[in-house]
């Protein structure tokens, strides 16, 4: 088990470097630069800028420097926000994204698991059809539509909640917007997983032993039924913590998603690379956590 974890952690390093390389290539082959504006810069100024940022060196040297900086975890200062380092920017914005993401995750799990389990127990009932239709709707409505609709209803018509502000009441709408699609997906996965398990032979055995339905469900059915949910929620949590561009933009949250989109628009190369490195490691760590949790959930899985 321990050697499995160590091996997987070590594997994260080359994977992250590969992701960084691809990102760097993409940024470089896109036309333009962070200093290209509507007006052409005088040749002398352009020369100076290139020299300052090492852009006059051959590409393989630039690539080498970039890789070395990545390995050290030092991406230098942002090109746009020159007074701040990339790391400072990431650590300043990440908590906002993480709080919204974690709350959305908890909400999605609470709604999704409850709805999914009840729907599976009362298959083909009104609740089943109702909740699964709602889930289908939740999956189909993109969050850039749902967000503004919620703002329209709860802020502009009902005056219940602020459309954007970093406060307890202000984060309600973004959390709901963000969790909707995950809640819908978890509900459907839970229902499908539970239905499959509830039909299985060992549930019939449990009932034949005279156990009551509560014990059958909690002791015998839930573990097997939730495995597909776990494999989804691990990477989903990573994605939620990382912040989402659309929701943060709609509700003006100063999170990671927001500075990421700014960085891309500004062609802020160090910031782009820093965020990509951070996110890729985050996602890989969460995937590892999911794989480890399988081992606890399913005794048939062992790691060597």
């Amino acid at each position, binding site marked *: 088990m321990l050697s499995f974890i160590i091996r997987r952690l070590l594997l994260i390093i080359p994977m992250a470097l590969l992701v960084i390389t691809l990102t760097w290539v993409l940024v470089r082959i896109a036309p333009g630069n962070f200093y290209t504006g509507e007006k052409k810069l005088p040749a002398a100024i352009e020369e100076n800028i290139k020299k300052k940022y090492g852009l006059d060196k051959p590409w393989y040297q630039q690539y080498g420097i970039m890789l070395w900086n990545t390995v050290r975890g030092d991406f230098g200062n942002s090109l746009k926000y020159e007074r701040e380092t990339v790391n400072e920017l990431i650590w300043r914005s990440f908590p906002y994204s993480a709080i919204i993401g974690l709350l959305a995750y908890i909400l999605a799990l609470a709604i999704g698991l409850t709805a999914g389990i009840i729907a599976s127990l009362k298959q083909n009932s009104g609740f089943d059809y109702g909740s699964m239709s709602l889930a289908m709707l939740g999956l189909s409505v993109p969050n850039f539509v749902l967000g503004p609709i919620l703002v329209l209803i709860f802020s502009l018509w009902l005056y219940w909640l602020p459309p954007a502000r970093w406060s307890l009441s202000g984060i309600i709408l973004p959390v709901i917007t963000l969790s909707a699609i995950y809640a819908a997906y978890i509900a459907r996965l839970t229902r499908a997983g539970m239905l499959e398990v509830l039909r299985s032979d060992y549930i019939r*055995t449990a009932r*034949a032993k005279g*156990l*009551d339905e509560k014990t059958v469900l909690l002791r015998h059915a839930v573990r*097997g039924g939730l495995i597909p949910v776990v494999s989804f929620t691990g990477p989903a949590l990573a994605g939620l913590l990382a912040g989402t561009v659309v929701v943060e933009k709609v509700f003006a949250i100063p999170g990671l998603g927001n500075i990421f989109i700014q960085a891309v628009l500004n062609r802020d190369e160090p910031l782009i690379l820093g965020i990509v490195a951070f996110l890729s490691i985050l996602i890989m760590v969460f995937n590892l956590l999911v794989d480890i949790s399988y081992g606890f959930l399913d005794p048939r899985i062992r790691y060597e």
Partner: protein
Amino acid sequence: MIETNGTILSVNDLKTYFQTEDGVVKAVDGITFELKKGETLGIVGESGSGKSVTNLSVMRLIPEPPGKIVGGDIIFNGIDVRKLSIDDVRKIRGKRIAMIFQDPMTSLNPFLKISTQLMEVTRLHLGHTKEQAREHAIKMLKTVGIPDAENRIDNYPHEFSGGMRQRVMIAMALSCDPELLIADEPTTALDVTIQAQILELIKDLKERMGTSVILITHDLGVVAGMTEKIIVMYAGKVFEQAPTKELFATPANPYTKGLLKSVPDPAHEQGKELYQIPGLPPDVAHLPPGCPFAERCERAEAICRSQYPPFVQINENHSSLCHFAKEVYAESVAEREKL
């Protein structure tokens, strides 16, 4: 209480139907049988003949919907099982009637240790403490012949072989010393040598504990040495019912004769092609008006296709569902005398 007269289970005109998109499937349609204390009854039939549904009905384990017991009586030790509340049924399940299922690979919960699965039965029904339940579980595992039971008890099902898993199932089923054990194709998923061991184990435990047994199988070879009485089922109905010896010696139903002929007999028929009953079992959602076996029957006549056959009493213990039951019986007797 109804007078039992040494009868542990009496099923009378049981009807279990399933509501499907294709119409009503009469999985079990008017089954009647009786089981005396300490007796072993064999229920034989092809897949889909209603053997398992009959026994799941006895345990009230039919998934509802789509299934429903629509008629008949199930009297277990004087108790009318159909009239019990679900809580009272649960007090019978696993304690007084226990069940072993076909596939030991899927019938044990793969996520729970054997100990958990064994102990929860006696803790529930016998009020055992954790320690008592564990001790009892180890004792049961030893009884069914699991070596090193003290250590194996904390293993998971996937750490056992198929035969061992079926032994664990049997230990689980017998741990509350039930009055009736229903074994639903207990050896179908096992290889032949293990089959014999498991059957021997059931037989041995039945004799030691005085349990009555219903043995469901599609394999006539399995019931031959195990049972006192056999019911042959087809399309949800009892086609023939007789003491085991009599059924094998002088069957009174063409379907039973077909089944017996399909058992390989290498001593006498070496090199010959194995007999098989032509055709497939009928779709029980759309049964013809006549005998459900008529289409596949060698001796079917016009009356078989138009009129539902009578349940003919050959003698006190032997009856057969066939227009020509007496004739078939006479033929069997004649064939017997020739040998």
